[in-house]
């Protein structure tokens, strides 16, 4: 187990390093970062002086070596736009992103898994059709539209919830619902089809023949056997959420990682982009690792010696 974890960690480090290198190359292919953080009446000689000072005039390999050297010490440099430690800016946003992701995932699991189970067990009944319709709608409705509609109804008309920002639990409700709507739809559909498949298996027949009650058959024998694809998809989605949900964050003025990253990209704030990619790819690979460990727990066949 330890050897396995160590090799996985080494893989994780490699993945993070490679993605950072790729992003480093890509952002440099864009334009001049100096123009975007200096005022528009800046003179050409000042632009060049600043570029020189920041090292953007050096050959790319030199810049890359400097970046790797810094990154290894956890130093991604100073944000060009905000003049603050880039990694600090990113880490400061992480709690808000974690909070929103956790709440959206919780909501998704609480809604989607039971919905998937019920629609599978009550296949071809009114419940199933209604559930399927709901999931299709959930997947088809664009997040920004749903977000704006929720704001209109619950903030402007009813005045129950704040339009955006962060502060109380009330602030968390609408962004979580918007994120969960889409993911719930996907998870519910997946749960339903995985359950249907498992319900047709011989071991379910055996369990029923043993005289187990239907809830036990569903919970213990069917759901657990359908869990692997659900866990896989949930893991991927959590990883995505931790990268920040740009549109939802923008609509609800949520101070998360996604907004910061996209703004940094648009502003060519390279240190922040790279620090964000570092944090995002690291969390993503860690989540993947956790998912793999979970597989072993769910399915003894993939458990490691």
């Amino acid at each position, binding site marked *: 187990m330890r050897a396995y974890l160590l090799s996985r960690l080494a893989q994780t480090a490699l993945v993070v390093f490679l993605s950072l290198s790729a992003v480093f190359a890509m952002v440099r292919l864009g334009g001049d970062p100096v123009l975007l953080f200096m005022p528009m009446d800046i003179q050409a000689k000042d632009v060049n002086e600043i570029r020189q000072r920041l090292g953007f005039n050096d050959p790319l390999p030199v810049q890359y070596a400097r970046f790797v050297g810094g990154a290894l010490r956890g130093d991604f440099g100073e944000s060009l736009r905000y003049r603050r430690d880039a990694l600090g800016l990113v880490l400061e946003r992480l709690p808000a992103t974690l909070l929103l992701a956790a709440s959206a995932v919780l909501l998704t699991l609480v809604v989607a898994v039971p919905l998937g189970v019920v629609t599978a067990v009550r296949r071809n009944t009114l419940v199933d059709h209604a559930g399927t319709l709901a999931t299709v709608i959930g997947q088809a409705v664009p997040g920004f539209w749903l977000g704006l509609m929720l704001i209109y109804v619950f903030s402007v008309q009813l005045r129950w919830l704040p339009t955006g920002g962060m502060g109380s639990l009330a602030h968390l409700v609408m962004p979580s619902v918007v994120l969960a709507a889409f993911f719930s739809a996907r998870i519910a559909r997946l749960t339903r089809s995985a359950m249907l498949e498992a319900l047709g298996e011989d071991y379910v027949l055996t369990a029923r023949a043993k005289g187990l009650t239907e809830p036990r058959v569903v919970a213990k024998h069917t759901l657990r056997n359908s869990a692997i694809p659900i866990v896989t998809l949930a893991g991927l989605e959590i990883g995505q959420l931790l990268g920040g949900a740009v549109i939802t964050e923008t609509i609800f003025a949520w101070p998360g990682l996604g907004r910061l990253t996209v703004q940094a990209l*648009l502003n060519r704030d390279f240190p922040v982009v790279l620090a964000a990619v570092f944090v995002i790819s690291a969390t993503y690979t860690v989540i993947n690792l956790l998912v793999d460990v979970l597989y072993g727990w769910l399915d003894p066949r993939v458990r490691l010696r």
Partner: protein
Amino acid sequence: MRSFFRAVIALTVVALAVPALAQDRVKSKEIVIGLGAEPRTMLAVTIVDWTTNNMLEHIYDRLLDRDPKTFKPVPMLATGFKIVNDTTWEFTLRKGVKFHNGEPFTAQSVKATLEYALDPASKSHYATASYWGPLKEVQVVDDYTVRFLTKQPWPNLIDHASLTNLLIMPAKALKELGPAKLAEKPIGTGPFKFVEWRRDERLVLERNTDYWGGPADASRVTFRFIPEFSTRMAALLSGEIDIMKDVPPHAVEAVERSGRARVRSTVSSRINYLALVNLKPGPMQDVRVRRAMNHAVDVDELIKAVLKGRATRMCGPLAPANVDYAPVECYRYDSARAQALFKEAGVEPTKLQLTLDTPAGRYPLDKDVSLAIAAQLQRLGIKTNVVVNEWGTHLDKIKNRNTGELFFLGWGPALNGQGTIQPLFLADQTYSSYGNNKVIDEKIARAVTVMDPKGRAAAYAELQKLVHDEAPWVFLWQQHDLYGVANTVEWTPRADEKVWMYDAKIVAR
């Protein structure tokens, strides 16, 4: 990692707090403003950014203010100034002013602030040639008299001292605490004190009851950063915020109908123009073609049809909101005249293929305006290909002279002549589209050094006439800034885009 844990703690604390309601805010005299963008730093005289300075000015005072109507310099931390000789200015400072930490404001504060800005270690944008670069030295004469020595005659100094380019920091605190600490907790002499800044979320200020100009009406000012306009508008209509910046023209009616707020608008000093690029080969090299373009574009129609009247037409390069403005005659929309000019230049409009570069969403309806201009040119048979750029790409293209023959750009807040004419009509400037005109080059070089106010006015008036005749742009308009303002707040927007809360009054309705 420390910032991570600090943020976790902050999060837990605020999770228990509940936002104040609109009626409570009236009682406690609080104002909440919804802006699309947040400040970049809380450190004064470091980053040139209008949004940042707008907020910093609530905390820090300048030497001089500008009258919002006449744009003339008026006293602030300096009670007066005189020009000693062509390269020496003397400011008399206000007595009895204290910083928020109790430190007295003196000539040392002015000196320390400018020395911080000019110190290469501070990497301040203000050390560059377009800002405090021409300054040689600051001399303390006595506690309340300070002299600015410049490298060359620099009449524009007065504009820099009255704009946001000189926010006075406390000398002792700057030395003892250092800039990093002042960035975390700014200490100024301004009408509001810093309370907290939560990045991408809010900036909270409280009233400075000892303000030298008398305390503000608002006891607490909160700037909330809400990037999406629909959300900002919903926040205004639901009573979460009291002032909303940038109401789009199509949403004006909805705000007015709400019964909770109304739209206040002002003509902005920010200008929009269509550059006719002569810095690269092509038809725009010919002044007759550039003039023809000015006759071919119907600016009034654009204002009426695209901007719903929310713009004020300009005839030359400067707007009346500019201190150096002088009137020039407008190019009239006249397609026959345009045709004649094209013919004179030997250009057949129906064979003309132009490219127009435009940003999208940077200026009011910029992309729509560009498309409408292309449609207007089509009436003469001119084919115009509109290219929509992401903002950074747009700037790159202009700087590298890679745009089409035409591009759309805004400039501002353009408050003095030098700030517009010098960077935009000289070939070696970063974002210029026009240049290499010997007469204009010389006149600009002279105008920026004229110390005598009358001579300066004459020099800029002559330049405006010259530029108008050279037609380097299709002169378009000054933007209008639209704000949604709650009925409980009395506040007049300003031409310079500053949301200035010292002027705001809270009234029960």
